[in-house]
């Protein structure tokens, strides 16, 4: 067993033991605890849990590498996956928390109709499944790469751990485990980033120091036949960068596993601050990633480019064994570099290895490599657990109880069905993770477009426009979904590569959302308004408190003033 394997095993075993211990401490006995953690999670902890839930194996392992090869255009992910939280905090989270139910489909079911609830529950399950399969796969790859276990074994071990704490603790167990997982993943991300910044520039804060390599990076990139690093719109035209960024933002705000996290706070105010803490924690990684990407690319071009194929640095050799770094056997000196094996470049570097190889490139000791592996596992497992909870709550709460049992069930029956649904979801996720359907990698990226075109407009209209009715919402949601899915299928499969106005399939979600808004507004306007009592419920969503205190200037102290019923009536 190598030193790296030894330290990876140590860190993974310790971190898993901590997760199981936390789950045991926070096991739950009632449905509110299972679905929304009894609405008793402090805001900072909830923010950390949202951050861990949000940042998947892709954010942790692949994003920096992707940015390294995209240069400026990598900003679509950086802005797209953070800007959505502004929309979430200002437009959705506080109001949905005030409505105070367990799931996203439950809100649209109450606000609109059972039909809309069913569409929403179906969409929530579909989006979450495509996502969770990718996470299982990511966790399995970390296992297999660092511990030499087969991928299937790795997936099964990761799933067994998630299953234990998700079934035991439900949302409460998942939330507290995610707080621990956030800590592991952010430490594992920042230590190598600080070290590599120090090595290359002599200043340890990567966010500040990566500017000093940009000019040289631009020059090197051009020398090796790549696009200038800071030059915009090299990978995508401007209109597409705009639309993809928007689609990722509104998709983020519409993803059920993110929204559901704001149901767990103590109050409406807690939901607002949770969004702040969540984005602060997320931004620690997201502001570091572009620096890691720039440094890694600089290292590769500066350290590898132009050298003889026989004199490459050690990390190239050790990663060549994994098949993720390929040196063209015909190359004598490295004169071209790519991330795509089909390009036939002298050196091919997979996006995924940059973060994982960083500690080695920076010459950090084996324990740090082990920590990075544990961080990748934490990122994959925390996201998978959150997604599994959405699948389980949508299936048990929205389908089984609302549709089959018509709302009549005892507390213990509800909890049992919730746990069974979770177990079923884990089993399907393991099978999917071991044999991922070929389209999964693409579908994950497109889940955002579908989320953008379906959930976001329906939720925003439901909160901000009382006049929006069930027919409008159902028509808007269906139109948005059908339009977006049709364009994606057309552009990807029927007529591959063809686009309208340079709009890529990733960016079409923005247009799909506009279609949803337009159809919902037109159909609502031309049909009868929602009932009075429902409009009053929507009105009440605007005010955080249940009862309003009298705050007229005449009253001496606020707390002695008599309470008046909110809304007067």
């Amino acid at each position: 067993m190598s030193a790296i394997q030894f330290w990876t095993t140590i860190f993974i075993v310790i971190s898993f033991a901590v997760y199981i211990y936390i789950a045991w401490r926070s096991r739950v006995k009632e449905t509110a605890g299972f679905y929304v953690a009894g609405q008793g999670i402090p805001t900072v902890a909830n923010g950390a849990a949202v951050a861990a839930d949000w940042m998947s194996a892709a954010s942790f392992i692949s994003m920096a590498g992707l940015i390294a090869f995209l240069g400026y255009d990598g900003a679509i992910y950086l802005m797209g996956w953070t800007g959505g939280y502004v929309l979430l905090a200002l437009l959705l989270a506080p109001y949905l928390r005030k409505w105070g139910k367990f799931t996203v489909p439950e809100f649209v079911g109450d606000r609109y109709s059972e039909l809309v609830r069913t569409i929403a529950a179906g969409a929530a399950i579909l989006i979450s499944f495509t996502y969770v399969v990718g996470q299982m796969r990511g966790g399995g790859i970390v296992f297999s790469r660092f511990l030499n276990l087969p991928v299937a074994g790795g997936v099964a071990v990761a799933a067994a751990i998630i299953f234990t704490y998700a079934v035991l603790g439900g949302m409460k167990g998942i939330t507290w485990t995610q707080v621990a997982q956030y800590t592991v993943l952010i430490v594992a991300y920042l230590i190598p980033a600080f070290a590599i910044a120090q090595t290359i520039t002599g200043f340890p804060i990567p966010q500040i120091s990566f500017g000093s390599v940009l000019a040289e990076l631009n020059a090197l990139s051009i020398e090796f036949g790549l696009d200038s690093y800071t030059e915009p719109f090299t990978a995508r035209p401007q209109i597409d960068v705009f639309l993809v960024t928007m689609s990722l933002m509104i998709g983020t705000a519409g993803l059920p596993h993110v929204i559901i996290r704001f149901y767990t706070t103590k109050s409406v105010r807690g939901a607002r601050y949770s969004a702040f803490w969540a984005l602060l924690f997320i931004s620690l990684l997201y502001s570091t990633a572009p620096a890691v990407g720039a440094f890694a690319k600089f290292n590769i071009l500066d350290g590898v480019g132009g050298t003889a194929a026989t004199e490459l640095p050690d990390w190239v050799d050790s990663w060549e064994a994994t098949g993720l770094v390929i040196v063209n056997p015909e190359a004598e000196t490295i004169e071209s570099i790519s991330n795509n094996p089909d390009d036939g470049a002298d050196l091919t570097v997979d996006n995924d290895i940059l973060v994982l190889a960083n500690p080695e490139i920076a010459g950090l000791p084996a324990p740090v490599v082990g920590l990075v592996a544990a961080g990748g596992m934490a990122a994959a497992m925390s996201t998978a657990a959150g997604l599994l909870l959405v699948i389980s709550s949508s299936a048990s709460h929205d389908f089984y109880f609302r549709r089959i049992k018509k709302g009549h069930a005892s507390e213990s029956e509800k909890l049992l069905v919730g746990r069974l649904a979770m177990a079923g979801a884990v089993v399907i996720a393991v099978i999917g993770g071991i044999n991922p359907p070929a389209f999964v990698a693409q579908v994950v990226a497109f889940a955002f477009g579908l989320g953008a075109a379906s959930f976001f407009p329906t939720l925003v209209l439901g909160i901000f426009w009382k006049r929006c009715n069930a027919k409008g919402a159902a028509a808007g949601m269906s139109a948005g979904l059908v339009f977006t899915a049709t364009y994606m299928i057309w552009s990807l499969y029927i007529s591959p590569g063809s686009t309208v106005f340079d709009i890529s399939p990733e960016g079409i979600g923005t247009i799909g959302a506009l279609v949803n808004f337009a159809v919902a507004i037109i159909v609502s306007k031309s049909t009868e308004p929602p009932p009075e009592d429902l409009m009053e419920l929507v009105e009440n969503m605007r005010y955080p408190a249940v009862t309003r205190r009298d705050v007229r200037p005449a009253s001496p102290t606020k707390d002695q003033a008599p309470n008046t019923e909110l809304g007067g009536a």
Partner: protein
Amino acid sequence: MSESRQPEAPEDDWREQYWKRNLRLMVGLLVVWFAVSFGAGILFVEQLNEIVIADFPLGFWFAQQGAIYTFVVLILIYALRMDRLDAEFGVDERDAEGKRL
């Protein structure tokens, strides 16, 4: 405080005022949200890249760093300002002892 709210004012007057001030704050913050990300980071990135500050082309910096920091600050401003607005209109959430939740 709100001098405009006289005892004889209609019962629902405060609702409209509260909502209007909430919307005004929200729209203001969303304008900044759009300006830093889509404005500085995408639409005007080429012009801003002509300006280089601390080795960073400015447009590139907004797209990969500045926009993210601004988003965090925007949410903080929203949460703080809404605290004040809620308290002013008496719709803040308090527990039995009158402590803020």
